[in-house]
């Protein structure tokens, strides 16, 4: 579904990604972890072309992201993305947030879009909040709305960029629960996260990045059982022992 081949990216002369290659098959859940500044957020933003890259190739459902001839808005509409800081549109109500792209990008009718939005809002447990503005919701609620907003587009895959990092501890689980449910339903997911509990429960594979490179790309059991690289061992010992 997502094929990443030898991706390299520079900011000026500073190399942020070095020859990263991996793939996410249909229905697979891949967790990307690593210390901050390791390039994991940058890599996931390359997948839907939010960040340009200078070398290599990324294909999503067979379509090349870096090809100038690719209709990027059309491709992006098929890939859901959830951000660290939610990024709901503050001037719109929750239901307007859910329907905007359905109507403007997919050309659905307002009624169809609203029905779809309300169904997904119900699924993340927030049907009662439909007419509120994002500023009146808690962080956890905002992130659940953001997940529902992405799902409204019937995505073929979902990208999560540290979806729980900006949340208070007591709100992390309400978001993770939604993500676990999504994974169990067979959604193709690529998640940048430090939530190793989530990785243990639903990930098929874990990718460990450091200094812009993919250091480890292993099945979940191999990764948690015996990571091959010393760097990954250190990282795991630091984030698991507290």
């Amino acid at each position, binding site marked *: 579904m997502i094929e990443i081949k030898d991706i390299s990216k520079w900011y000026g002369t500073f190399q942020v990604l070095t020859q990263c290659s991996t793939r996410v098959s249909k229905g697979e859940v891949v967790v990307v972890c690593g210390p901050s500044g390791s390039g994991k957020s940058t890599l996931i*933003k390359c997948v*839907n072309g*939010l960040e340009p890259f200078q070398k290599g190739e990324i294909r999503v459902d067979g379509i090349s992201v870096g090809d100038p001839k690719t209709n990027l*808005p*059309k491709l*992006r*509409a*098929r*890939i859901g*993305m959830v*951000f*660290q*800081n939610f*990024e*709901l*549109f*503050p*001037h719109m109500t929750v239901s307007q947030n859910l329907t*905007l*792209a359905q109507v*403007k*990008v*997919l050309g659905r009718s307002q009624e169809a879009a609203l029905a779809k939005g309300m169904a997904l809002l119900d699924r993340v447990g927030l049907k009662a909040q439909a007419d*509120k*503005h*994002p*500023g*009146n*919701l*808690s*962080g*956890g*609620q905002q992130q659940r709305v953001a997940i529902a*907003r*992405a799902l409204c*587009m019937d995505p073929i895959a979902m990208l999560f960029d540290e979806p729980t990092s900006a949340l*208070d501890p007591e*709100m992390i689980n309400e978001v993770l629960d939604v993500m676990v449910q999504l994974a169990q339903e067979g959604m193709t997911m690529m998640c940048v996260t430090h939530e190793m509990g989530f990785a243990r429960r639903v990930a098929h594979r874990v990718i460990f990045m450091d200094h812009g490179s993919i250091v480890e790309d292993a099945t979940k059991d191999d990764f948690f059982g015996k990571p091959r690289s010393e760097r990954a061992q250190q990282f795991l010992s630091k984030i698991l022992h507290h």
Partner: protein
Amino acid sequence: MHYHWNWRIYWQQSPDGSGTYLHTLFVGLGWTLALALLAWAIALLLGIVVGVIRTTPLRWLERIGNAYVELFRNIPLLVQMFLWYFVMPELVPTALGDWIKQMPPPWGAFVPAVLCLGTFTSARVAEQVRAGINSLSRGQGMAGTALGLTLPQTYRYVLLPMALRIIVPPLGSEFLNIIKNSAVALTINVVELTASARAMQEYSFQVFEAFTAATVIYLLVNLVVVLLMRLIERKIAVPGLIGPSGGPAPAGH
């Protein structure tokens, strides 16, 4: 000081035969408002366009926008007024130039004055629009883009509605400025409020009464604008966000 106060002067007939002096002042006010409102329409439209192109990822568009702002922001308004009135008709194709010069009064001066005030203020509006867009988090644009919105759609539905809300207070100040700056148009013979007050002074020699009236009228008009801006700010406030009557504090934290 030997000054003969005469507050009833406003109800006396003006020698230009059009009516009372008060009537003259109100006709002047009419031209001031027409000038300010038309110029404001131009300023908002051009200012938003130029402000937006200065924030797009396209470098050459950004440069054009920057050049526009620096040009209109860094030349005195009075000089710009003269340029539009005296120089512009000579620079455009001859037929158009002749047509402009033959426009009957007051249009021959009013049209250049509107264009001048509009472009001058648009540079300032553009600067504010740019600042407003740049004050939004980069993730907002990304979120719109990630949903499949095109760049123009992202601006139209995501970035501009918030950016314009943020800059309503400074835009209000710009609107007050445009009303006050419209007085400069008297230098190219637009008989707006200040010019009317001066005409009244010249005919009647009642300089204090004439300019007291102009002062009070400007003050009242601008106070109305201030009140209107407050109403607008309240009307467009986003619930849950900080600001005048932005609603209750966010739930949670």
